[in-house]
């Protein structure tokens, strides 16, 4: 049976790639995401100017040959700040999704394996409880105790992601537990944990990738909001949300300070959302037909 499955996969693979290349959403989304991820990576080795270099003589310039996106009130190069800011946004969102998946998926698998049992009930009620604490509220709590910082943002967004992945995994796993191939695995003597890892997990992986993309984009938005209100990334590390907060008093005279970081956020989030939509259509053609 496993050989037959492998055969199907082997023939399905090139078709999947071709479909991926033909999906407009996926391609535009992936291009936008790669662009910003590439900028973030490039900023580790090169930025046009130093992001901590203050040059008051060159402050509040609009786009020019020297400063492609202009400068801020300290004369810092905005393009360089956007590049380094991408790092903070992407890093926070990735780690937060990692926390959500790392804790949520095992919890969801355990709940489904224990469906109807006490463990299932405890996990699901725990989920409901965490859902009652929006990321912002968790961030407020953490900041009140330990002070602001990027780590707060990661923890706050990460905790909020846990029930999202736990519910999704449990829901998908529940329907799989009723399928014949799982029954076959049980008859073969495999335990619940082994079935969850070897059979359930691979079958919910696509779903998790799609949801991961969506949570990634929500994470970018949440990080920007937390940094904007001062609960996230702290100075002097540039972040898109804080660039927006700093631009607020200068918006009358230098609107470009507010427009550019905002556009960076919108394009990154849009890219991830389009990629998520494209992946979902790709993995589950039935949804595409239904829409």
């Amino acid at each position: 049976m496993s050989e037959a499955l492998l055969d199907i996969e082997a023939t399905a693979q090139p078709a999947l790639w071709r479909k991926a290349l033909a999906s407009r959403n996926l391609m535009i989304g992936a291009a936008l995401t790669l662009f910003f991820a590439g900028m973030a990576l490039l900023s580790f080795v090169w930025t046009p100017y130093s992001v901590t270099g203050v040059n008051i003589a060159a402050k509040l310039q609009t786009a020019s040959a020297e400063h492609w996106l202009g400068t801020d009130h300290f004369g810092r190069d905005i393009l360089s700040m956007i590049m380094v800011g991408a790092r903070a946004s992407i890093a926070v969102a990735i780690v937060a999704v990692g926390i959500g998946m790392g804790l949520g998926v095992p919890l969801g698998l355990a709940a489904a394996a224990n469906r109807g049992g006490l463990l299932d009930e405890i996990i699901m009620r725990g989920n409901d409880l965490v859902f009652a604490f929006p990321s912002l509220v968790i961030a407020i709590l953490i900041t009140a105790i330990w002070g602001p910082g990027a780590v707060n943002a990661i923890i706050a967004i990460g905790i909020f992601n846990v029930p999202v992945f736990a519910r999704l995994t449990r829901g998908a796993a529940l329907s799989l537990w009723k399928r014949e191939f799982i029954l076959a695995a049980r008859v073969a003597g495999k335990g619940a944990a082994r079935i969850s890892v070897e059979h359930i997990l691979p079958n919910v992986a696509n779903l998790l990738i799609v949801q991961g993309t969506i949570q990634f984009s929500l994470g970018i938005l949440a990080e920007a909001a937390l940094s904007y209100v001062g609960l996230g990334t702290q100075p002097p590390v540039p972040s898109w949300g804080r660039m927006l907060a700093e631009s607020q008093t200068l918006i009358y005279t230098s609107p470009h300070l507010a427009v550019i970081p905002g556009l960076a956020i919108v394009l990154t989030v849009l890219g991830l959302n389009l990629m998520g939509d494209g992946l979902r259509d790709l993995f589950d053609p039935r949804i595409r037909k239904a829409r």
Partner: protein
Amino acid sequence: MLRYAFRRFASLCISLIVASAVIFFAIEVIPGDPARYMLGINAQEDTLAALREQLGLNVPTHQRYLNWITGMVQGDFGTSYTYRSPVADMIGERLWISLPLALYALTLSTLIAFPAGILAAARRGSALDAGVMGVTQLGVAVPNFWFAMLMVVLFAINLRWFSAGGFAGWEAGFFPAMKSLTLPAVALALPQASILARVMRSALIDTLGEDFIRTARAKGLTKRQAMWRHALRNALIPVLTIIGLQFSFLMAGAIIIEQVFFLPGIGRLVFQSITQRDLIVVESVVMLLVFAVIVVNFAVDLAYAWVDPRLRGAR
């Protein structure tokens, strides 16, 4: 229905107790000595003792938790250390800005999303549908506080239709007060409306594919009649859930949007309290927000079970 409601109520109470314990533990136990935390490292010993006395820190932890809970149930949230006034009054005052703002945004988002979602579903595949989907795709990606800033530039600075921030106060009259909440509410409503329009559209499209719609059409109803009389009502169920879930995002979003417009609401209060280390205020505001989310979800669950009897036995 009554049994279901009772079960849900019991689980509501447990959620509230556990949530309050988590918040109490985070704010009052983790920092060690809250009095020392609030006064800083250079505090005099007698000042510390006075504050401990005032905060009621001289009793065991579990007794403090019980005092806090019973106080809150009776409407006594304690006294703010920095403002020296009852926290309940301070929250009450600011709630008169944050709550109307959230409700205003919820209304706007529903008013925008319903027609947009219904039109897109009714003319599925048309240019209008593509337009709605495109705009909502963008709406979901735009941070609401950035959209708010752009609106300030356009409507307050360039066109001068609205003020760039501040709150007129309810004493100035209903309309001036609502006017100062309009730009914040629109900013808050945009992403929510985008999500809601998408949910409305897909729920309606799903329902329009159901057998009972085919039966209705076979009976001789026009497409429009089948949609308004049968499909819409059934599509509302998932939409209502999303509206309930959105309430918590609106409350949290209101806290952020208040910063853009310098509105003296709950958000201002909590951020000031964080910088002033006024833990009592932070604790109370967080509890209030969590309380609101839990209670709204409870109400949505009940409404849901009332609309759809099949769900009563589901959990």
